[in-house]
């Protein structure tokens, strides 16, 4: 019920390990914390129970789950029933590419220990459930720029110049 009527957008993205550990969750629909936990548990269970060689799509309530596994991590998006499933798979892939470009051969541990970076990169790419910037260059540049900004201009200027 509450999830319906927002055509075209991703409702939430979950990253979880093969052991069912949640590594990243991004919600583009406002839900109570309890509900989020319940949904997460349910979906992790559904996806982990699926065989390989199956399609990447599962009907779930009014929505459709589109998921793909990269090494030890599952990436799962919930989209509207009539949304573009294949392109959602490529949203996931583009995100993995962005992580990869930033971390260099990204692995599960990178996401665990630099979770905030994983969130920042996702935010540059997707906003409110819609793709914001599909150009890899632009998205990564935005992250790298912000890393530069770790130091204020003053600090930068005060650094010894060798």
């Amino acid at each position, binding site marked *: 019920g509450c999830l319906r009527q927002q055509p075209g957008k991703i409702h939430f993205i979950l990253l979880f390990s093969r052991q069912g550990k949640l590594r990243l969750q991004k919600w583009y629909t*406002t839900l109570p914390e309890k509900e989020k936990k319940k949904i997460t548990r349910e979906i992790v269970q559904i996806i982990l129970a699926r065989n390989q060689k199956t399609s990447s799509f599962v009907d779930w309530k*009014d929505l459709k789950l589109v998921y793909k596994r990269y090494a030890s991590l599952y990436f799962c998006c919930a989209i509207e029933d009539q949304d573009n499933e*294949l392109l959602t798979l490529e949203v996931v892939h583009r995100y993995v590419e962005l992580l990869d470009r930033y971390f260099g051969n990204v692995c599960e541990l990178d996401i665990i220990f630099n979770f905030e970076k994983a969130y920042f990169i996702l935010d540059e790419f997707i906003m409110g459930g*819609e793709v914001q910037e*599909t150009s890899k260059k632009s998205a990564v540049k935005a992250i790298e720029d912000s890393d530069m900004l770790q130091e204020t201009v003053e600090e930068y200027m005060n650094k010894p110049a060798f």
Partner: protein
Amino acid sequence: NEEGCKSKEAEIKRINKELANIRSKFKGDKALDGYSKKKYVCKLLFIFLLGHDIDFGHMEAVNLLSSNRYTEKQIGYLFISVLVNSNSELIRLINNAIKNDLASRNPTFMGLALHCIANVGSREMAEAFAGEIPKILVAGDTMDSVKQSAALCLLRLYRTSPDLVPMGDWTSRVVHLLNDQHLGVVTAATSLITTLAQKNPEEFKTSVSLAVSRLSRIVTSASTDLQDYTYYFVPAPWLSVKLLRLLQCYPPPEDPAVRGRLTECLETILNKAQEPPKSKKVQHSNAKNAVLFEAISLIIHHDSEPNLLVRACNQLGQFLQHRETNLRYLALESMCTLASSEFSHEAVKTHIETVINALKTERDVSVRQRAVDLLYAMCDRSNAQQIVAEMLNYLETADYSIREEIVLKVAILAEKYAVDYTWYVDTILNLIRIAGDYVSEEVWYRVIQIVINRDDVQGYAAKTVFEALQAPACHENLVKVGGYILGEFGNLIAGDPRSSPLIQFNLLHSKFHLCSVPTRALLLSTYIKFVNLFPEIKTTIQDVLRSDSQLKNADVELQQRAVEYLRLSTIASTDILATVLEEMPPFPERESSILAKLKKKKGPGTVTDLEEIKKERSSDMNGSAEPASVNSTPSPSADLLGLGAAPLTNSAPPPASSGSLLVDVFSDSASAVAPLAPGSDDNFASPDLASSEVVSEEPADTVHDADELFHKFVCKNNGVLFENQLLQIGLKSEFRQNLGRMFIFYGNKTSTQFLNFTPTVICSDDFLNYILCLNLQTKPVDPTVDGGAQVQQVVNIECVSDFMEAPILNIQFRYGGTFQNLSVKLPITLNKFFQPTEMSSQDFFQRWKQLSNPKQEVQNIFKAKHPMDAEITKAKIIGFGSALLEEVDPNPANFVGAGIIHTKTTQIGCLLRLEPNLQAQMYRLTLRTSKEAVSQRLCELLSEQF
């Protein structure tokens, strides 16, 4: 597992320690520097994301927002977007920080602020910023990256609170972002425009031609033209899909040039699907096919280019056999919508074998589900038998998760496309055999409805359930259907010694003890029906009803039924039994409740659309043009016997009479009781039109509570029903057995035309009850009634079953500049279907005694409203429709009458006795019929006459 528990315990211990540490840091005397604050806020966030509750640190996070260090600000915003709910008291502080960042003209800070607004996305956020963001979006000096964020941020707020995002000057400028040079800006803007256009199509109409030209430039570009927006050799797939989706908010473009250009684009996309891939990577084919599927969606949405539709169908046909499971899945899904287009329905049907094969061989339940959906969508009369057989076949091994849905679909298809109903009955019994647990009430109610409504299948149904019940272990739903059908139609197979009454009874009763209470209750009703159908096994059944396990059953419902049925079978005569336990009347045709259930299950949308379109294309076997009435299925277990169905109503006190308006029709008793000469030409209405004695001054927009006017028609068929200064309504009617015909004359008393003159006969409030009982057919009248003219309307009447409320005649028309609306009760009353019966005194009192059950008699004692004249009284009783029996009552002052009420489904014998008391100026009226409700209604009607 113990190890898991241990590690979980250890984790909690570790985290509690860490939380205590952070808390002490935050509460410590020493003010934390920005770096430490950021570090601890980040740790808290990490702990929260591990699934633990966090109840502090919010203030520290808010403090970080005003830091001028980017990373501190960034962590602050991240914490806020994940952890701050909308009604937090901190929201004012947060909004302040966001406001500052939006005004900072620093694109990175603005970006962070916009992301935070979108991430929280609450109504409070919309209240605070919905006015500001459109300005940022269309300002000339806004950086591209900020425009992108502003567009999507606004979209998020619009979704949360559309009322807070008013359309304005900015909307036309947003549309022109479709021409922006920066593809990232176009992508974000297209998302925003699509959502806005869905709710305000007029406002964003110009986006269609802009979207088409943008799309055209993309699909015809060389793969390198778009540089970084080319994804694995596919030019701007995200933008292409979004543009195609935007176009799905509109019908095909009207401008032929735009339309031609769009068709070219779609053809190009279809052509590209046939080209060899530019890369072997799955990303390439996914992106390419994503655009292709979206283009096909648009083609289906427009549903106007047969050539494109058939090409789309062929393309999907290729995908049905693709080695990629995802493509097979999507092809099945997409074809499902294609099946509903009349241009491509036949083309889709050619793939039936492939789809059936998918049902049998696909290893993924999601894919099989799509195959079921597609078979359902492509089903029509030509392939229904095959598709239903395959679905039944699949049901044997189907996943539990989709069984119920398949059952519903099979039930719908079997009914919809049944050429002969024996196939339908077989199919439903098969459903119960294969997947009895998933056969819902709607399904088995429906089969019973259909069998009751179609006498050509009743014998077959009885034979088939009888055979099916032979199985040693049969599903309880089969017992229900079997019990119900044999109770109604077991007599049709009782001639065969192999299914004699006793064998039928023993077969059913052998299942009794294994069944649940509701099923047992149903079986008890079957048994009492058997008492009527098969008097020869009455004692056997009485023995069963009398046994302790029934009469002393712990279940109240079962016990009551046993007691009542036993009593009924003991005291009631065969005639009464035959009436009480008569065959069920046909159910009114209406939308299948199964379909309603499937719609509910699947949500609105797909099922409805497909069904509606199909209904138009192939004439429905049911021909059920009835408006969809919900919850229409009566419960068979409740309806099997009419007993206790009608609430016991005490004879109502006669309505307070006010004779002032009433012109006593019986002053002219001769005309009141004169039998209607069929085909007599006397235009009774014209003399009445002239007399203006019956002018009603009441406002003409409410139901005329002119019960008096209504009541005078109970004993006569002709006269003026209604009159005011504008309009006079006259009636002339005749009734034969359960049929009748009424002529309604509408006289325009003015010299001005009535326009849009629309009389409608509508039912009283209890619609369901009404259509079950009374069938009325009218033809529309000429909408113009000239001044001084009279038009007539014929109502054909069929009494299906006894009824209480009279229908209502509603009349609407324009007179001069005013709209007139009035309603009057149409005097079609139960007594109109009387056939008088002459009988001797002896016969009368014998029957009178037979109808001695308290529920069969209704009595009313009332004061005389008119002079107590014996001759007038006799005329009224004859006018009421019953025979007036002379020399029957020992007291010559009394009046007795007898007659039979004819309905389509049954005949009801009625006896009446009227005892006047001249001294007291009172009457006592007694009605005895085999049906309580009938006694009640006739008594009400007749009491009003004296």
